[in-house]
């Protein structure tokens, strides 16, 4: 054959290549590729999990934001309600306080009147005693007797004069 082409040698080389191809495929190519594929799947799974977690987080965030928005409204509503309740309570408290104050005032007045009446009554007795004492003192004092004597004299004098004229 030209160029020393030898069919037997070609077949021998083919056999070599076949052994090499099958050997490398089974020993190295397949296990390494399998490992790489496994890792790729593992990363894909992780990515999917991360994506799911991210989506869930986004969803939760949305829910929370919605809840927050509704909570603001709820808070405003509660504030309004609390304000109304406070107003009602305040009015009731004021009303009660006024009633109580009126009661206290009435009691105080009543009590004061009673005290006043009692004081007046007590003072009447005291005045009477005082007047009696004063009268007694006045009667018993010498000046008064002189004045009384003079008064009586004057009165007698005046009676005599009126008789003389007659």
């Amino acid at each position, binding site marked *: 054959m030209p160029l020393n082409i030898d069919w037997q040698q*070609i077949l021998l*080389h083919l056999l070599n290549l076949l052994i090499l191809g099958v050997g490398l495929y089974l020993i190295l190519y397949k296990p390494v590729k399998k490992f790489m594929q496994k890792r790729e799947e593992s990363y894909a799974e992780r990515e999917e999990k991360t994506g799911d977690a991210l989506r869930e987080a986004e969803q939760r965030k949305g829910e929370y934001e919605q809840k927050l928005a509704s909570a603001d409204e709820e808070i405003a509503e509660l504030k309004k309600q609390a304000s109304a309740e406070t107003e009602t309570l305040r009015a009731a408290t004021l009303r009660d306080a006024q009633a109580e104050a009126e009661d206290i005032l009435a009691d105080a007045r009543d009590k004061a009147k009673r005290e006043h009446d009692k004081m007046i009554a007590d003072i009447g007795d005291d005045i009477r005693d005082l007047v009696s004492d004063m009268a007694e003192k006045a009667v018993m004092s010498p000046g008064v007797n002189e004045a009384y004597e003079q008064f009586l004299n004057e009165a007698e004098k005046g009676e005599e004069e009126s008789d003389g004229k007659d």
Partner: protein
Amino acid sequence: MSKDVKRTKRNKITAIVVIAAIAVLLIVGIILTDPLYQTTEDISEVMKDAVLHEENKVSLFGYEVNPAYISSIAVVLLLLGVALVIRIFAVPRFKLIPGKFQLLVETVVGMFDGIAKKNSPHRNGLLGAYVFAAGCYIAVGTTFELIGIPVETTSGVSVSLPAPLSDINAAIALGFLSYFVILSGGIAGAGLRGVGRTLKDFSLPISMSFRLFGALLSGLLVSELVYYYISLSFVLPVIVGVLFTLLHALIQSYVLVMLTTMFYGEASEPHIKKPKKQKPTAKHGAAQNNIPVSQEV
């Protein structure tokens, strides 16, 4: 000057002296041993034998084979041995975050797999494995000649083992095997249409074989030429070795892998039926042209 600087300088001088002494001893050894290996062949005979392998045969279990076949066996054993070692000691320790060696192995496998997937997106399971084996075989086989393992021929001459693909028989085997792989892809992917597509490129195995053979042979011839003369055996082999061996190893691997994957992809592409164009009817056509049917007929 500090002690450290003095010590560094002394170490440098020692290293230079040792290297120079080794180089001198090597040169003396080369010159002294040269007469022992005086060849009776002239350069034209050496180069002719490098191309044709007619003279120097090696005995293998009683069969006379070309030295390149011994190289082929050595390369196959070497590759399978390395693969086995990696499989036993490295692959079970592979981690999700790869180390340097794992990254190297994964990059090589991933590169061939990626080329197969890119050029043949429809079918690429077998193709990836084949181009991986073929690429490794060409790359390792071509650099194998740099080792220069000596073997004794049947005529008693000592020759260094050449690259397996510098033998035309090995190149033809690889070229035809690639063609058969492409053909199998064509059959698996597109049936008879795939066979037709593959047979259309009947010159492909010849072109693949001779491209490989020519590329590898050119390196071999230049190496033979350089090593024939002792005066050319200094410094020059480093450049020649790099240019004609390492570059060929990479370039030829890449070329064969790319060609095989591209032709495989083309042959295995599934056929998509094109929607039939509706021909305008005679009546419709006539109406369009404002010609009475009777006149048109």
